């Protein structure tokens, strides 16, 4: 670890802290339908959309109606994306590489993936998806799924804020306003900023260039015998990348236009673009803590939640950065220490550089990996599979905690609010009083639904992972055996259920088994968790708000923050510690003993 690395991490957090309040206050105005400076441009567009779709913006919905609208919308867009993927070869538009139709299992997995904001990619995008599919099927989903998550978080916040109401808002209005007022304007400016750094944005066919230094490659021929060829040219993929990159990060989607994701120089060209990308992952989720405080009338409660998230973020990044700064004990004779050629002239930052871009270094790789898995983004600028065992455990553990450390856009906030309900309930049990959250009694139904939300997540992950380690179809995709291979499988299901989408890599997920089971995992991890969350929101909205009394547990101070962090760690640790022990922790101990697995 170096002072420079810590300084960059500190600068990242300082900028996030500065951005959270204006972002949160702006979103509160957008969802409360108050005036904003974008109204002259966007209100006519909004009205036109409602007129075309027959939406009455003044009619609000109860939680069942709100949930049903969200499910119908998600089902329709999933099928649309599936159809586009299957028909891309037949549509004479934006397919200059003449890419074939996407195979059914993969098409369904991808449609489920982008509908759920997961953006798990079991394919090489530049070799599989036409520009039309990337733009109409996938990039639009990046907006829709993000706006859906934001709408759901707002519905939950309304449930807390309202008294004796059966309504949570109008799903279509929240979806539209989140897209038009929040996502689109930021993405337009953001995409241009990425272009200024070197990200590409075009619709032309791929370039073929002559290599400066031809490469000799030996590979098995048709008859199985080795054939040596000299490669003199290279194909460089093109496409409308910057526009997709912006929403990929801002919407915590994470699905790359290129296979290398944010490690590709077109997606993430410079250290500045890298900083922008990390900040944009956390921008909306951090802002939501301020939105929460504003809409429930307790700004301090919003900041208490913010600091609980910040503490967990720092614990993650510190652990990951430390782990990745350690030398690999199996690389005998390799000097892995920090090395400088003189003042300000760094030769090596020291530690594990495998799978990392030298443009970003260890500190920014560890920070990116932590941020992308704290949130439900899943974009990567380094390969998590190449991390040291404990370094790779951090992204995995982050997702296992439910991605509530700032979290996905909207999803992080409503996930955290479920933990708030559980924390308040536990606090009530400890002092022997009826738990109250901001003046509302937390009762049996609220706790039942919260626990359903908490339990579905490990159930689907551990269930499918257990079956996969028993079946040849699950084991045949592994590139490593032993605890590392186990981690690859657990990571795939955790990433899918958490709607994260980052891959540990090393697992060939483009098989019938993984395409279908990971697709189911994504749908369960998204929609079957949203439903009980909405049920809690709907139930809270109907309750009276009691004035604070001596027995009220305050949710706007340090004690609450500490309790919340404790509950999150205990729930996460108790649920997943056995799996982590069999995976990264065992691998770490074996590595220290000089044992590795191929």
């Amino acid at each position, binding site marked *: 670890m170096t002072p420079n690395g810590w300084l960059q991490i500190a600068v990242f957090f300082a900028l996030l802290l500065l951005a959270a309040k204006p972002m949160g206050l702006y979103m509160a105005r957008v969802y409360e339908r108050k005036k904003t400076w974008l109204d002259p441009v966007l209100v006519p567009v909004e009205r036109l959309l409602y007129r075309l779709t027959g939406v009455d913006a003044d009619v609000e919905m109860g939680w069942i109606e709100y949930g049903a609208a969200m499910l119908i919308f998600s089902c329709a867009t*999933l099928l649309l994306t*599936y159809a586009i993927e299957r028909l891309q070869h037949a549509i004479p538009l934006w397919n200059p590489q003449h890419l074939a139709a996407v195979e059914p299992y993969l098409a369904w997995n991808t449609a*489920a993936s982008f509908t759920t904001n997961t953006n798990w990619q079991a394919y090489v995008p530049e070799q599989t998806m036409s520009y039309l599919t990337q733009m109409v099927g996938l990039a639009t989903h990046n907006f829709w799924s993000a706006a859906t998550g934001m709408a759901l978080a707002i519905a939950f916040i309304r449930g807390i804020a309202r008294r004796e109401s059966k309504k949570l808002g109008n799903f279509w209005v929240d979806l539209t306003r989140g897209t038009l007022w929040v996502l689109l304007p930021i993405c337009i400016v953001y995409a241009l900023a990425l272009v200024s750094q070197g990200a590409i944005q075009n619709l032309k066919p791929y370039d073929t260039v002559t290599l400066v230094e031809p490469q000799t490659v030996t590979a098995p021929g048709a008859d199985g015998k080795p054939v040596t060829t000299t490669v003199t040219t290279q194909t460089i993929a093109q496409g409308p990348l910057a526009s997709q990159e912006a929403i990929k990060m801002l919407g915590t989607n994470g699905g790359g236009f290129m296979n290398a994701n944010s490690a590709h120089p077109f997606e993430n060209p410079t250290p500045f673009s890298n900083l922008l990308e990390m900040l944009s992952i956390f921008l909306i989720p951090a802002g939501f803590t301020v939105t929460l405080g504003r809409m429930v009338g307790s700004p301090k409660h919003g900041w208490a939640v913010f600091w609980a998230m910040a503490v967990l973020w720092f614990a993650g990044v510190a652990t990951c950065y430390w782990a990745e700064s350690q030398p690999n004990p199996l690389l005998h004779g390799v000097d892995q220490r920090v090395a400088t050629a003189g003042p300000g002239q760094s030769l090596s930052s020291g530690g594990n550089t495998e799978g990392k871009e030298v443009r970003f270094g260890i500190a920014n790789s560890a920070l990116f990996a932590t941020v992308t898995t704290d949130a439900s983004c899943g974009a990567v600028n380094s390969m998590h599979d190449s991390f040291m065992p404990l370094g790779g455990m951090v992204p995995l553990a982050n997702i296992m905690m439910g991605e509530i450390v700032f979290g996905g856009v909207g999803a992080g906030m409503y996930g955290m609010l479920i933990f708030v309900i559980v924390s308040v309930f536990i606090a009530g049990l400890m002092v022997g009083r009826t738990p109250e959250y901001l003046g509302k009694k937390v009762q*049996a139904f609220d706790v039942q639904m919260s626990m359903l939300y908490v339990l579905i997540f490990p159930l689907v992950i551990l269930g499918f992972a257990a079956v996969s380690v028993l079946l040849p179809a699950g084991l045949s995709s592994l590139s490593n055996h032993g605890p590392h291979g186990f981690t690859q499988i657990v990571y795939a299901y955790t990433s899918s259920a958490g709607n994260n989408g980052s891959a540990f890599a090393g697992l060939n997920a483009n098989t019938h088994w993984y395409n279908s089971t990971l697709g189911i995992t994504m749908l369960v991890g998204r929609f079957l968790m949203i439903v009980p969350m909405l049920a809690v929101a709907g139930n809270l909205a109907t309750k009276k708000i009691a004035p604070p009394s001596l027995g009220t547990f305050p949710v706007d101070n340090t004690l609450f923050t500490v309790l919340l962090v404790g509950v999150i760690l205990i729930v996460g640790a108790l649920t997943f510690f056995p799996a982590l022990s069999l995976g990264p922790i065992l691998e770490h101990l074996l590595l220290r003993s000089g044992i590795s697995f191929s």
Partner: protein
Amino acid sequence: MSDIAFLAASLAFFFVAVLYVYGCQSLKGGRDDA
């Protein structure tokens, strides 16, 4: 054939999800609920 199977699977999932909404709602009404 696969396309029809995936269409049916998708519709079935969301149908079950809607039933699940009503299943959750049916749990409400216990002694301690508001």
